[in-house]
């Protein structure tokens, strides 16, 4: 349960726009180095290979507006369904089913020309009507899409002809193309999207066996570059060890996201397997309830941030993997700046700050801890770290479902641990009603203004500013950024490395034929 998801992207098929951060280039360097290593295998890949992808995230149904969970993005985004825009694996927004885009001077009217000759898997042609229907599906009253709110500025959708969609906004929304990358374009005549599909992507759904596997076969009528494999089967596991064993025994070819660091060792030094570490967007968070004593005091929050050795924590959990972050923004977001120096680990100054805040003798608080990894371990670590500055942590273990009721809905907590998987989710700090209750009018305004920006540079400048402020305010305590580790058999190459929105584009995967 954890988070809403965000699309990320495909690599080679689509053009990349300008990069805004050093880290993005670092990610690129990483990509390049791995793809060079992979080149040797490309020569003899099997174009009809069946690639088995092992995953822990089985979708609950097949419709991303019906609460299907992150698993559906992994299996369907870019593979079965496409959107007007695509979030690439490097974090850029690239055109998808849109061939041409024009924006009016006031930023309130977007005109999209659709790619010609695109057909759905059912054979129906893609028309502007389908696009209108698809967007309306996401903003419909019964939609459970996590993107619903971000599309709220859409006031009208016009379809002057079959190839043209005009989107009118009630207020400027610089993220519109980005937000549209979450909107699957579905055939408006499609019936049961809970258990079936009708998209335009390079694969069509073959069969879903609930609790076990979801099979996609190549769409031979695909408008774009054909996939480099014939079939993709997502094989679902509930137990990480069982999943690792399946890779060890050759039952699966690749694991989308390794969540148990201990298991990496058995693959790392084995030439039969490839281990890649990309940048995830999943942040491990000690979230305070900023509304309540003593966490409404910025000094207390800063003191806690300084009292915790994030580096030691990250190393004890992920070893050499993972990244330290100084705020909520991961390096793949355009408004990333390195803020790890703000409230860096310093026990003495933590004590001093606590004294200033009137807690020279410390205090105690209850930490609501979700019962699954890594939270209980993190909680114990925090308990021992904070004991050094006189703060007593009472660990209260709860289930994910309880977390949602107690913390997220009722705001009935002092502090909690949670992982936030979303890409570009700094906007949550601009919502004073969000569960953590951070309310800084300056940040609220900046985030609001960033959405009304005239161009992406202005948007980036405003969000970078907001990013700095939340870090200085220690709005929450951002412990570390998860690594995105993909392990595969060395016979397969070409899978996405960052998986920004849990997406797993399968069409460039090559499997060497034996």
């Amino acid at each position: 349960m954890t988070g809403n998801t965000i699309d990320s992207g495909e690599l080679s098929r689509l053009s990349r726009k300008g990069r805004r951060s050093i880290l993005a280039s670092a990610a690129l360097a990483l990509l390049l180095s791995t793809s060079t290593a992979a080149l040797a295998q490309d020569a003899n890949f099997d174009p009809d290979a069946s690639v088995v992808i092992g995953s822990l995230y089985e979708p609950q149904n097949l419709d991303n507006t019906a609460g299907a969970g992150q698993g559906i993005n992994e299996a369907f985004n870019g593979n079965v369904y496409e959107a007007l825009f695509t979030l690439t694996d490097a974090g850029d927004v690239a055109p998808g089913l849109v061939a041409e885009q024009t924006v009016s001077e006031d930023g309130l009217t977007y005109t999209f020309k659709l790619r010609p000759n695109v057909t759905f898997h059912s054979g129906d042609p893609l028309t502007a009507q389908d696009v209108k229907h698809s967007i309306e599906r996401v903003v419909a009253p019964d939609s459970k899409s996590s993107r619903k709110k971000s599309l709220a500025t859409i006031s009208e959708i016009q379809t002057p002809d079959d190839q043209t969609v005009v989107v009118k906004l009630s207020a400027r929304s610089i993220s519109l193309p980005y937000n549209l990358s979450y909107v699957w374009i579905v055939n408006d005549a499609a019936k049961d999207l809970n258990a079936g599909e009708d998209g335009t992507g390079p694969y069509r759904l073959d069969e879903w066996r609930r609790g076990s596997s979801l099979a996609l076969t190549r769409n031979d009528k695909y408008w774009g570059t054909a996939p480099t494999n014939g079939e993709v089967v997502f094989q679902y596991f509930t137990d990480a060890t069982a999943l690792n064993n399946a890779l060890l025994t050759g039952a699966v070819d690749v694991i989308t996201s390794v969540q148990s660091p201990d298991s990496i060792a058995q693959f790392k030094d084995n030439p039969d397997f490839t281990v890649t570490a990309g940048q995830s967007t999943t942040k491990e968070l000690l979230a305070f309830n900023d509304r309540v004593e003593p966490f409404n005091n910025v000094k207390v929050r800063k003191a806690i941030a300084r009292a915790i050795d994030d580096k030691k924590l990250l190393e004890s959990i992920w070893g050499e993997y993972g990244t330290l972050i100084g705020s909520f923004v991961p390096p793949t977001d355009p408004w990333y700046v390195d803020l790890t120096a703000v409230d860096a680990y310093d026990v003495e100054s933590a004590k001093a700050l606590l004294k200033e805040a009137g807690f020279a003798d410390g205090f105690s608080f209850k930490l609501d801890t979700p019962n699954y990894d890594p939270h209980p371990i993190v909680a114990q670590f925090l308990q021992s770290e904070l004991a050094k500055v006189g703060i007593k942590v009472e660990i209260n273990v709860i289930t994910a479902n309880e977390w949602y009721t107690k913390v997220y809905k009722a705001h009935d907590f002092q502090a909690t641990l949670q992982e936030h998987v979303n890409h570009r989710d700094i906007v949550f700090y601009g919502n004073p009603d969000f569960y953590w209750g951070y309310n800084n009018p300056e940040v609220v305004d900046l985030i609001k203004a960033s959405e009304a920006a005239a161009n992406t540079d202005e948007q980036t400048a405003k969000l970078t500013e907001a990013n700095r402020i939340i870090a200085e305010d220690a709005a929450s305590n951002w412990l570390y950024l998860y690594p995105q580790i993909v392990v595969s058999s060395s016979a397969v190459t070409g899978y996405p490395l960052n998986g920004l929105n849990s997406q797993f584009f399968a069409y460039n995967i090559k499997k060497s034929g034996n």
Partner: protein
Amino acid sequence: MLRPSDERNSTILAYILRRFAILILSLLIAAVVLFVLLRLLPGDPANALLSVGADQQQIEAAREQVGSNLPLWEQFLRFVGSLARFDLGTSFVSGKPVIEEIAARLTVTVPLALMGFALAVAIAVPLGILSAVKAHRWYGAAISTVSQLGIAIPVFWVGILLVTVFAVNLRLFPSGGYPRRGWQNEGQVLYALALPVLTIGLVMAASLIRYIRSATQDVLGSNYLRTARALGASFSQALIRHGIRNGAVPIVSILGIELATTLLGAVVVERVFALPGLGSMLLLAIEQRDYPNVQGVLFISTLLVLLIGFAADLFQRLIDPRLRERATGAAT
């Protein structure tokens, strides 16, 4: 006046009817208990449909969809009402009829449990009898010791051990997973179920051996066997003609309990081997607070367990005339 055979038939019929009434009553009680226990869990089933970022309107819509906004008594009336129509409802999360998914899952769990059970019986019966008859030989003692050990080892550990040896190291069997076309390809299903069946078979055989051993020892020390031997029957004749039938009576009820346990215990084995059976459906449903799925699985499991108990009772009465008379006495 009834002829003896008619009388016998009618008492059996009365017994079946009475037993059936108890079965229905147990099911009803089980349904109420299930409903109440589930609602005691903290959390809201609507949460499974939502993610971080959902607003109040979406939360309310999800609660309305799953009915968790209704008062408890109304939820209960709906539940009982649909049960009366043999309708297990619709999953909150997938939106599919519960019975449909249970039916699909049963094609994994039932063969798994039955094959594991058959394997356990095939191992335990000869070994149990052997260890009783040859209790004073070294191998008799060895069998007892090994079965004691087997009881002490948890089932998931046996599964993990078998995976390490036969899947990861020897590559003889898959470590887990289930063929996606299911029984359309029997060979692959049997291949996938090999290690899970072995796991269940071994663990269950360990405890069965002890029951069979002690039942056999009872028989061996019995007066009727000695009498049969005194009347000139050979040891094996006496054992086959009198011993097995007598010894089978307590064994049948143990087997019934063991079979029911296997069905329920498949939860663990299914998780170790990533099988899409009833157990993994239950685990996921509990995690998601998908009440209709949890209720459905538990209700069907309860039904299966009660039916197995019913069948075992009936079978016992068929092979043991003394129990039949007792049934008569109770019925009149």
